């Protein structure tokens, strides 16, 4: 089991954004996390990646207790993530964004950088090679020298995804990676996600577009009002009465 949450709960004042969620993700899976607006999907991602602290409950990653750890430590353990609003380095080009991310993930040595040691220079060369490979993998080579702020929305999101790969994540949390994209951009993102998954990365995908999730994921978790209401294969989820009620209102389920 790569990721396991036990009774994970997050309250904002009186509101339970996430309530007693038990879920587990196995190595190599690509799992969809769906639910209506405000169901608590992003909060769940924020809890797992350490950007929010849970009110109660536990999180286990790779068999280790990681509840309450800071985001950067979780990132170093191999939990990567993207954001709904892409936090790119806006004044850098695509290439430099990736270089920055890969630099950031490599170990830093103050003395190495001041003295410019041969070992330090060799590491730099390796990083540049990795950047080129990853840019190719997600299909961003053609916008290599564009400034991030000038990229179309979809490309920015794919760039965010590519940057998340810098830490060589074991688990990648994707928060609406295809939100607000055109068809062409959606295809680019889908291709990128499939390739990243094919390389062996476990993925938890939050997405509004149910048909995309149905096509992409082997397993789907549905939450509503912070609670898990369904967990299973796309078939099972599609036929689950509670899911239908959550999405289409009570009248349809009857």
């Amino acid at each position, binding site marked *: 089991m790569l990721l396991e949450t036990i009774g994970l709960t997050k309250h904002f004042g009186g509101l339970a954004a996430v309530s007693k969620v038990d879920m587990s993700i196995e190595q190599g899976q690509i799992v969809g996390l769906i639910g209506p607006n405000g169901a608590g999907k992003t909060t769940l991602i924020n809890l797992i*990646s350490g*950007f929010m602290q849970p009110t109660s409950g536990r999180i286990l990653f790779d068999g280790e207790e990681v509840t309450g750890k*800071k*985001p*950067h430590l979780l*990132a*170093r353990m191999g939990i*990567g*993530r993207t*954001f709904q609003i892409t*936090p*790119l*380095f*806006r*004044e850098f080009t695509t290439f430099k964004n990736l*270089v*920055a*991310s890969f*630099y*950031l*993930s*490599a170990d*830093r040595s*103050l003395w*190495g*950088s*001041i*003295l*410019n040691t041969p070992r330090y220079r060799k590491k*730099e060369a390796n990083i540049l090679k990795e950047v080129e490979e990853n840019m190719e993998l997600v299909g961003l080579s053609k916008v290599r020298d564009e400034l991030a702020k000038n990229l179309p929305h979809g490309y920015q999101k794919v760039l*965010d995804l590519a*940057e*998340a790969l*810098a*830490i060589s994540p074991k688990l990648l949390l994707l928060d609406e990676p295809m939100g607000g994209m055109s068809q062409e951009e959606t295809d680019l993102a889908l291709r990128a996600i499939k390739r990243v998954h094919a390389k062996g990365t476990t993925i938890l995908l939050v997405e509004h577009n149910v048909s995309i999730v149905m096509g992409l994921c082997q397993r789907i978790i549905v939450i509503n009002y912070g609670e898990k209401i369904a967990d299973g294969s796309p078939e099972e989820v599609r036929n689950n009465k509670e899911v239908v009620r959550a999405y289409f209102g009570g009248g349809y389920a009857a």
Partner: protein
Amino acid sequence: MKNKRFKAFSVIGLVVLLLLGPLFLESYYLHLAIMVFIYVIVASSLRTVYISGQLSLGHAAFMAIGAYTSAVLAKTLHWSPWYTVPLGALASTAVAIGIGFPFSRLRAIYFSMASLFFGIMVTSSAGLAPGLTGGFNGLHAIPRLFGFVRMPYYYLFLVSTLLILLILYRVEHSRIGMTFKSVAQSHLAASSRGINEGGMRILASAIGAFFAGIAGGCYAHYVGFIAPAQFGVMTSILLIVYLITGGKGSFTGPIVGTVILYLTPYIMGGFQGYAPFFQAGVLIAVIFLLPEGMISLPGQLMSWLRKPGEGRRAAIDAP
């Protein structure tokens, strides 16, 4: 390629000028050059803090800690300034790390406000312990490095400044510097890539404080007199003015800014009293016409000459 060669030649020319210059200069101008060296170090060390997304309004306080620690040790314990200046810089670094733990949790304007009060606190506390620090009247008769001859100071500070600038340049243009800049641009992206945001802010502050402390120590053992007012809020703000008007986007920005703005009051002769107005005017002109700072002036001039009017508008529209 041509550009690179031009750059190399101008650097060599500058170094030769700096090395041979003092042989032909009057002592008064040597003094100005020495002061410029000291403030170039401080302004450049402020840049290291600045690129990590922290606009400090109390950077001169680190100069004060370096200066006071070094001066008090040298005066009361009769240690050689050669040891006390580094000790002062270490004291300054230690304080930066200490306040870094709470301060690094603050972002943007909240950090600036906290640093402002830190600066005020440091200079006030120097004033409150008159037995040791001489109080608000200052500390007199600090042992000097080389007595009253200015030439040795000039060469020592020249070499130190160049060395420190080299170190700061390496820090900024390395993975560490990239980390600082990324924390400033997007703390979300940085921390989800495994960067300890607070830790990197503290590291940047510590590096900045160390070199500000060195500069403070040099100042104390060159001038021979220090008082809290020399390291007050006004000095901190002037440092920011040097940084911004010189060019906040470039390593050479604070250097150029310091050289020009520090020297202006002295070359204005009888109009010295109007220097603040002049500096304010320069600052406003730079913000409107040269958002990239004074270092972008040559390039801007060229573009204005080519397309009158257009370059100017572009500069104003730029974010």
